[in-house]
């Protein structure tokens, strides 16, 4: 089968997949076997930001709210919260909690558990790591007027707060257990989720079984699940050999094509834009990257529209967009995006302008070093593509590919001209997406080292704006300004491709590999 025909088959599969799944009546029973391509560094949801923890651990826990639905219709719904309301000034969130919810040890869930959980995230006790403490810093006080009501009082308005209440990393823990040992989640897995922990063998597997006391009486459909920790390269062979039914992080286009060509209609393919991009950061503390003309020339040189579809056939990067993933509600409309330098449709016009700008800036034969990671997909192809595009305007690039630790050190120490990095989060959120793009005064991960406080001011303004229409206007203005200044430039956005066995039903492709992994609605058609 040729490359093109495989791609077409895969694309048709992607279109066809979800329709029958929605129409069928779910069946009960069976054990879902899936691969996880990394080992969880901890079992504590609050202590890490990796999918390797989320995929095996999330089925055992609940969160206050949760994200649900596919990538083109993702929404926030209640999980342990039955309902919630936000005050008009945006400073108070009141949640009404479900009644009759039990922890796996049989104890009752109450508002005290929410309070203890969020206090652990905001003010982690000694020995506890809270990886997302900063994004919860606007929470001032947590009140529990009764056992099934919890009130969050904010220090200041944070328009992204509802998303953080739905964070898959904010697993709700037992207050009683935390009182005994605040580090218990890293030692035992015990929550209110649809599955109960059975065993975890490091380097091998994780097993969970159905929790009969789960608060949704007809869920979960599965009897249990077994997650296998394997190298990414082993997933295709494992699926072909029947070892795994699924792998939820995502496969490359080549792996998708291999699975489709060898397993045919035994697999389903789901694809969609991923909340992860490849970002090129200019070191503005070094000449000539402090010159806006040079940065603009380098973004103009990249033909994003021309590279998008073709790169998407062989790499994980595909989508053209600005600061938000393609198609997200926050994204600038394409008609506006293509007016911004670097996103013009006419590649020749862009390159002519780029050459003119480099000449004007006094660096017509610019040489630069591109700092990159030694991760094949998609960092290497991203580097190859940028280097090729810059070569076309006379820029000579040395590709410095190093191990992740050295790459981080290089960015942190400013030992680079341009760095290839990425932004990835669990939801389309202006606060999260812009955090990397702020000035050094406002963000600890602002590797471009710019000092443009207009970005910080607009960022604060949008975060403090409750009215969604008004916030959207500010976010769009901020996005336009950020892209025009080009301290950091998005190259392309990831395309998430998940290939599962066709018997796996009830799983819809979220735009993030962090979200939608509780397995509550998953069932096996066998």
């Amino acid at each position: 089968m040729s490359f093109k025909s495989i791609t077409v088959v895969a694309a048709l599969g992607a279109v066809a997949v979800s329709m029958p799944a929605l129409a069928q009546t779910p069946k009960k029973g069976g054990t879902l076997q899936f691969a996880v391509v990394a080992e969880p560094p901890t079992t504590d949801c609050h202590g890490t930001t990796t999918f390797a923890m989320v995929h095996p651990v999330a089925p055992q826990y609940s969160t206050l709210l949760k994200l649900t639905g596919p990538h083109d219709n993702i929404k926030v719904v209640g999980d342990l919260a039955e309902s919630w309301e936000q005050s008009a000034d945006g400073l108070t969130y009141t949640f009404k909690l479900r009644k009759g919810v039990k922890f796996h040890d049989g104890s009752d869930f109450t508002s005290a558990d929410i309070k203890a959980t969020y206090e652990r995230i905001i003010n982690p006790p000694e020995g506890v790591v809270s990886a997302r403490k900063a994004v919860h810093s606007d929470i001032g006080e947590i009140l529990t007027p009764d056992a099934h009501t919890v009130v969050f009082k904010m220090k200041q308005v944070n328009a992204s707060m509802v998303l953080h209440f739905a964070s898959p990393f904010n697993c709700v823990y037992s207050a009683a257990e935390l009182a005994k040992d605040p580090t218990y989640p890293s030692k035992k897995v015990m929550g209110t989720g649809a599955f109960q922990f059975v065993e975890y063998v490091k380097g091998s597997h994780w097993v969970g079984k159905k929790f009969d006391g789960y608060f949704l009486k007809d869920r979960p459909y599965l009897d249990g699940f077994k997650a296998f920790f394997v190298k990414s390269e082993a997933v295709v062979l494992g699926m072909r050999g029947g070892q795994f039914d699924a792998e939820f992080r995502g496969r490359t286009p080549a792996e998708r094509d291999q699975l489709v060509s060898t397993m045919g209609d035994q697999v389903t393919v789901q694809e969609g834009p991923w909340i992860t991009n490849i970002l090129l950061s200019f070191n503005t503390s070094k000449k000539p990257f402090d010159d806006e003309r040079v940065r603009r020339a380098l973004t103009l040189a990249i033909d994003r529209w021309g590279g998008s579809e073709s790169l998407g056939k062989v790499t994980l990067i595909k989508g053209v967009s600005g600061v938000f993933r393609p198609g997200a509600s926050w994204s600038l409309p394409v008609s506006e995006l293509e007016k911004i330098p670097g996103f013009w449709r006419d590649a020749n016009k862009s390159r002519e302008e780029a050459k003119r700008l480099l000449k004007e800036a006094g660096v017509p034969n610019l040489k630069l070093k591109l700092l990159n990671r030694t991760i094949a997909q998609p960092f290497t192809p991203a580097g190859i593509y940028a280097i090729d595009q810059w070569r076309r305007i006379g820029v000579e690039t040395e590709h410095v590919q190093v191990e992740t630790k050295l790459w981080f050190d290089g960015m942190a120490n400013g030992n680079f001209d341009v760095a290839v990095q990425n932004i990835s989060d669990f939801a389309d959120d202006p606060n999260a997406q812009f955090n990397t793009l702020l000035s050094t005064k406002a963000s600890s991960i602002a590797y471009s080292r710019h000092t443009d406080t207009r970005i910080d001011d607009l960022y604060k303004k949008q975060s403090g704006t409750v009215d969604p229409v008004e916030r959207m206007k500010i976010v769009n203005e901020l996005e336009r300004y950020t892209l025009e200044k080009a301290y950091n430039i998005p190259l392309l956005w990831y395309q998430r491709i998940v290939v599962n066995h066709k018997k796996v039903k009830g799983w819809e492709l979220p735009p993030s590999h962090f979200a939608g992994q509780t397995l509550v609605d998953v069932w096996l058609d066998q």
Partner: protein
Amino acid sequence: MADVTAGDAFADKIPKRTNPIVKFIVAQPLGFVGFLIVLLYFVLAVGAQWIAPYHPEEVDFGAMLTGPSPEHLFGTDQYGRDVFSRLVYGARTALAVGMLSAIVGCTLGAILGATSGYFGGIIDNVIQRLVDIMLSFPIIVLAMVVVAVLGRNMIAGIDANLIVAIALPMVPKMARIARSSTLSIAQMPFIDAARAAGYSHARIVLRHILPNIVAPYLIMLTAFIAQAILLEASLSFLGLGVTEPTAAWGLMLSGSSADFYQAAPWMILFPGLAITLAVFAFNLLGDSLRDWLDPKMKV
């Protein structure tokens, strides 16, 4: 009476001097084939910018994974880059890294071996134990350790640390050979004469011993170039050598090439052949040089 000189009288008895290149071709035809292939690679490496039809890093999405054709003799890779052009430029990388590493490794080894054999005693003991330690590591493992520890250090477009990593495993092997040659040369009367004349040790080693181990040096050098090319390709394949988008044969075989070997087998076929042929040619040349230069092989 004809005016006949003594020289003329014996002229027909003096064997005619045959051109050494002709003698080598007649005596070592396979070696000559190896030499021609090596020469071809040199021509490709030196004239890459005139021979390659495309820039080796030029991405062309209109020609992704295209099979061999008049436009792309060896097809294209997943980014539409011309495989033939990348092979031609890859010869430059292979020969530059291969030759520099082999020269560095062989020269260091020869100096160490000659020093060890000449001085003997504790110096010999210390050097030989170091050689033993280095020989106990598999070549690829030693090279990987060096690359991992030293990182990258680009000088004139070539990673100097990669050359050190490839050269280092060659040092002990050359040192052993140079030592054994030195031990026999050191017993020669002209060395005693040099000592008696009061020459310094450095002068004796550099002026009298090293020139006499040139033959094994050249033989090992050709063999090591083949090894170095293979090692560079292996390290690049493992992601420790040359980095994308530089054209290098090992790199062309590695990474995502494996993802496309079914749809585009030319992506791995031609670099594989280039490596095999280069190693084969250098080995042929090395073996023939050994036979040609070793007096024992002529008996």
